[in-house]
């Protein structure tokens, strides 16, 4: 899945820093897309099944575009990056290490992820690196709907029965610490900021996101504990993720020399 794109010339260190950023964002989209696709066939109702599956597909579509940009930048292959890496080499945030859980758990994660992703996409759309800015602009338009859908379900469960609300709250509490890791610092971040490839520091994006999310969640659950991103927030892996990795690489591994 590669296509020729003419990219602005970057020196090796800038390129490495940008590659790290692209991989982090792409892996987030790729992994949440696969977790949410686990709902295909078993969502609460047929219409919701189609909606959730379609959103999951959109996320994988965003990952595809980001992997392609990364592959062009590093002279690699998007399929290899997506399906040819070991589980330990993935760089998604720890938020996406958890199995899908019940419906409320998935709703909690979608809410936390979509809101964080929106803050990040706004910064990426302001990147000085034009191919990234333009891709982020396109992705943002599709994420508008994802956010509406995520918020609709958050509110629905929060205002439903005690059981629905309790499940939502326990999902939010369980995921809260790991959700911070969407803004985990990048090794090459200072360079990216200097070049304005990244328009805003992760720390500033994190503060913006946390204020917004705390305000929204205050009427739903007890005040969530203090939490901040950590340096290994994109390196921790779990058995849940290793299982998912086995699933999504199984077809590619079945015939490694095949052209798909």
């Amino acid at each position, binding site marked *: 899945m590669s296509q020729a794109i003419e990219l602005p010339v970057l020196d090796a260190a800038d390129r490495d820093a940008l590659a790290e950023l692209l991989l982090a964002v792409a892996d987030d989209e790729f992994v949440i897309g696969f977790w949410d696709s686990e709902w295909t066939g078993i969502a*609460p109702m047929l219409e919701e099944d189609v909606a959730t599956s*379609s959103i999951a597909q959109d996320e994988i579509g965003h990952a595809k575009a980001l992997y392609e940009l990364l592959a062009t930048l590093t002279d690699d292959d998007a399929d290899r990056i997506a399906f040819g890496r070991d589980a330990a080499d993935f760089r998604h945030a720890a938020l996406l290490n958890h199995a899908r859980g019940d419906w409320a758990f998935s709703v909690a994660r979608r809410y936390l992820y979509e809101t964080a992703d929106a803050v990040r996409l706004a910064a990426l759309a302001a990147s000085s690196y034009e191919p990234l800015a333009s891709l982020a602009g396109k992705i943002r338009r599709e994420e508008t709907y994802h956010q509406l859908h995520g918020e609709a379900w958050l509110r629905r469960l929060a205002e439903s029965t005690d059981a629905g609300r309790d499940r939502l709250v326990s999902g939010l509490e369980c995921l809260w610490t790991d959700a911070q890791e969407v803004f985990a610092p990048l090794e090459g971040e200072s360079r990216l900021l200097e070049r304005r490839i990244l328009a805003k520091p992760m720390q500033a994006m994190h503060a913006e996101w946390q204020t917004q999310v705390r305000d929204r969640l205050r009427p739903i659950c007890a005040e969530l504990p203090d939490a901040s991103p950590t340096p290994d927030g994109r390196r921790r892996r779990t058995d849940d993720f290793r299982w998912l990795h086995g699933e999504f690489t199984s077809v590619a591994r079945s015939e490694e020399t095949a052209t798909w």
Partner: protein
Amino acid sequence: MTERIWEVFRQEDEGDPMVHAGNVNAPDEELAMHYAREFYGRRGESHRLWIVARDAVVELDDPDLLKPPFDRSHKKPGGYVIKHKLEAAKQRAAAEAGE
């Protein structure tokens, strides 16, 4: 969730007629909109959707009102043969122009 049925109409391009596309089940307007978008717009095939609760539709299907038993041909334009009248009028117009 108590589900309701929502009828969906779609317009392919600005100015095209709204055409009935089908329907979706949803508990309320908000999810009806999301589901209509997924079912009838996610491939970029629609310019506009109308989503209408089925119970808001006024239905008329009374045969006494719509298909009464008497001959209705006089209510259709085909019930009048105007071909000859039209020809005569054309000739008259041509004759008048020639005068």
